[in-house]
């Protein structure tokens, strides 16, 4: 091995966790980079290239996609309206009418819900298809969320 461009010291206690078919395992990072001539120093470029060479597992990729999907749903205008409607209905249930009647009326009209029915029985109203959103973990046996 020639001169290192940027040596980095691997601490004796440093490990790398690996998921295996026999469970989660830790391996000393020094075991991956043992070189008696170089002591415990590793060329940081080699280390980075090696670590960068590991690609995420399919499970991790799916988890990222799901997280991104729900992040986008959460940022949507419809999500914000649903949240405002739920909050206003919950406040009304506690006797805080105030401005909430106006909010519920406005949002119900925009969504296309019966205002009076929504106020009287909010748990049993059904959102129009374009205002529904799927459960966090979709499963063939579950139905899309009908509740507000």
């Amino acid at each position: 091995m020639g001169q290192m461009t940027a040596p980095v010291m691997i601490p004796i206690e440093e490990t790398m966790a690996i998921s295996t078919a026999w469970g989660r395992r830790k391996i000393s990072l020094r075991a991956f980079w043992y070189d008696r001539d170089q002591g415990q120093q590793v060329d940081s470029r080699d280390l980075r290239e090696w670590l960068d060479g590991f690609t995420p597992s399919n499970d991790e990729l799916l988890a990222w996609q799901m997280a991104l999907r729900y992040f986008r749903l959460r940022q949507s205008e419809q999500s914000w309206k649903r949240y405002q409607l739920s909050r206003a209905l919950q406040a009304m249930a506690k006797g805080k009418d105030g401005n909430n009647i106006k909010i519920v009326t406005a949002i119900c009209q925009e969504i296309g819900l019966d205002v009076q029915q929504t106020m009287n029985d909010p748990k049993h109203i059904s959102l129009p298809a374009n205002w529904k959103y799927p459960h966090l973990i979709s499963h063939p046996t579950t139905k899309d969320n009908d509740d507000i």
Partner: protein
Amino acid sequence: MIQYPLKVLHIENQEQQHVSNKFKPSQLEELPFIFTCIRWPEDAEQMLRIQREDVSAQHGGQEYALPLLPFDVYLADLNLRDDTVIPSDFNTTQARHAEAAGLTTAALMACNFMQHPACIIPYTAYTTELEAPQYDLVKRLLPDSVLVDWEAEELISKGFNIQTLLPRISSQYRKVIRMAARAGHVSIPYMELRRLLQQLCSSQGPSDGTDDGTCHDTN
């Protein structure tokens, strides 16, 4: 003593050549490897017989708790033949007399645990042994999940020394763990990779080609 070392099986019929006899105990403790030394295929057979069930039972578990089998690395003397006169009543088999018995023992042991990344580092003091048909056969038929350091041939021509093989344990295992990750046998959690990159190369920029490789010593 280093925690969480790699598990190395050293297959060598000459006991004085065992790694455990080449280093002082204090030196062995400083290595990030833990060695188990055996001499014959029969020793490997016994290990498999005793431990295979335990290994199977732990498949699918949460925490890896396998102190011996399956091994990560097999450091294998290519041939296990010697001139020792074996007493006629000695309980032995013909296995050790097979061609390339050390390499074959390592390969067959590794094939017992296909999802467990493993690499084999064969060595011999005799270049002529590399021409053995059995060596050629194993070389051709081993599955991709078992990596064999065929380049060890180069080391032999430079003069064999067990100490020169130790860095190869690291370099070969680095390769095999990446191969196993690509094949889906193991995975390194993304957050673990991020943690290591940040911890060891905290002052480095993104690796997008503009990276100047600056990484300062963390100690």
